């Protein structure tokens, strides 16, 4: 019974992070890559995958840094700083690995890849973890769920944008304008999930 309720709570953490409190649509985090790299499905998937890796890693390491280094030494005020440094290093590692394995993806992700560093979702989710007092497993799950939510948002958005490319959109709304409106409507739709993670 204990285990079952644990699994339920883990499931609700992931569900909450992916759908109910979707990083992009509900928490409105990480909009820069969300708008910037979602023109093509292929790059959206690549960006999503890279972010998923970085975000999960960031959540794990930041939890460890926080519990083992900052809290014992009463250095909580260094939290944001040290998290940013850690994230930057993880991003660099990811960038080097992508450059090696998929140069085109690297070129396409372009500036957005190093910008994962400044993707507020990547800093925001570890900080939320601390605020929500998650343990290591929960932090990892929350980070992974948030990243999956981000990827989901990216992929759905890219699918719509690829189709919108053929639409006869009024001139003044072409490009970013209609993308913002679409993102707004998607956010509206995600509000329908409200309350799902509170169900007991």
């Amino acid at each position, binding site marked *: 019974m204990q285990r079952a309720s644990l699994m339920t709570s883990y499931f609700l953490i992931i569900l909450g992070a992916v759908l109910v409190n979707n990083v992009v649509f509900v928490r409105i985090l990480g909009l820069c890559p969300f708008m910037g790299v979602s023109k093509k499905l292929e790059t959206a998937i690549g960006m999503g995958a890279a972010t998923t890796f970085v975000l999960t890693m960031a959540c794990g390491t930041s939890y460890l840094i926080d519990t083992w280094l900052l809290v014992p030494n009463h250095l909580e005020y260094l939290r944001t700083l040290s998290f940013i440094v850690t994230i930057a290093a993880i991003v660099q590692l990811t960038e080097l690995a992508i450059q090696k394995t998929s140069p085109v993806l690297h070129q396409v992700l372009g500036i957005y890849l190093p910008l994962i560093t400044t993707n507020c979702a990547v800093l925001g989710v570890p900080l939320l973890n601390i605020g929500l007092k998650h343990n290591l497993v929960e932090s990892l799950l929350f980070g992974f769920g948030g990243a999956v939510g981000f990827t989901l948002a990216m992929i759905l958005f890219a699918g719509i944008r690829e189709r919108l490319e053929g639409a*006869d959109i009024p001139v003044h709304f072409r490009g970013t304008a209609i993308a913002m409106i679409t993102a707004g409507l*998607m956010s509206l739709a995600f509000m329908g999930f*409200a309350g799902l993670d509170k169900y007991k």
Partner: protein
Amino acid sequence: MNNSPYLHKAASVQSVMLRVLLALLPGIAAYVWFFGAAILLQIALASLTAFAAEAVVLKLRGKPLRPFLTDGSALVTAWLIALSFPPLAPWWLIVLATAIAMVVAKHLYGGLGQNPFNPAMVAFALMIIAYPQHLSQWPSLPAVVQMDFAAQWAMIFNLPPTQTLDALTMATPLDALRTALHNAESKTTIASAWANYPAAGHLADRGREWVAAGYLAGGVWLMQQRIITWHLPIAFIATLGLAAGTAHLINPAEFAAPLFHLFSGGAMLAAFFIITDPVSAATTPYGKLIFAAGVAFITWIIRCFGAYPDGIAFAVLLMNMCVPLIDMATQPRVFGHKK
């Protein structure tokens, strides 16, 4: 001079849309029968707003008015909005919703045929978030029956003698059941909550179940007319029935019966008229099945576990988002190609 083919079947967007409107009539008739003529007023308000909004945008965009105002698509959107809103909702609510549907959800994306989201559902979702109190107040059948059209008119336009809506309205069965179940102190079951519900009918809400039956009849006629294919409605009804049925079998105390779900809220309207909007729905045969099943399942989830009384609008929008991917993944096998 045009090129081949030089022959054309006599078919037009207009005739398609007009037949959809025609198919809505049985449901509307039942609506008027049970709840009075207020709904006709709402339909008129929505239609006028839709025409006006469409005309203004077309003018601004330098598009010809005639073919687009006469194609009937604005009317379909307007009627669907009117039918999914509470019949005694204030006039500005329906006007605002219709205008948003036409301008934001339809024309900013390029107008007819290009909108990725169902305009009527965009309007509904936006309104239920912005004005939850207005959209959750459905008139109770006993109260409405006592109102004449003049009183309903006064109600909608907020004219004196001003009546407070609260006196006339009550929770919809979906709402009532949810509230009862979520109330942790009283150990209510579906059955006991339903027994206490004042407007309980045969399957669902008295009156509204007949409206749903009217939609069902109109929808079957649409299928017979080959305006819509069987995929969407059947997959929707089957999935909603299956999800509700399974849960009901496992725990009848907490989960309502499938027929209750199908005849409550906007389920029937959605099955035949909302999710069948070809523009925003999936288009491949398999894609349609997935799309409709998705809408039904999310609807059921939101109804049972979510925060909103009916999840149809959100479910439709959520599945609209997935349409490009669904279509991409379910392309039929092209002649001569292996799948």
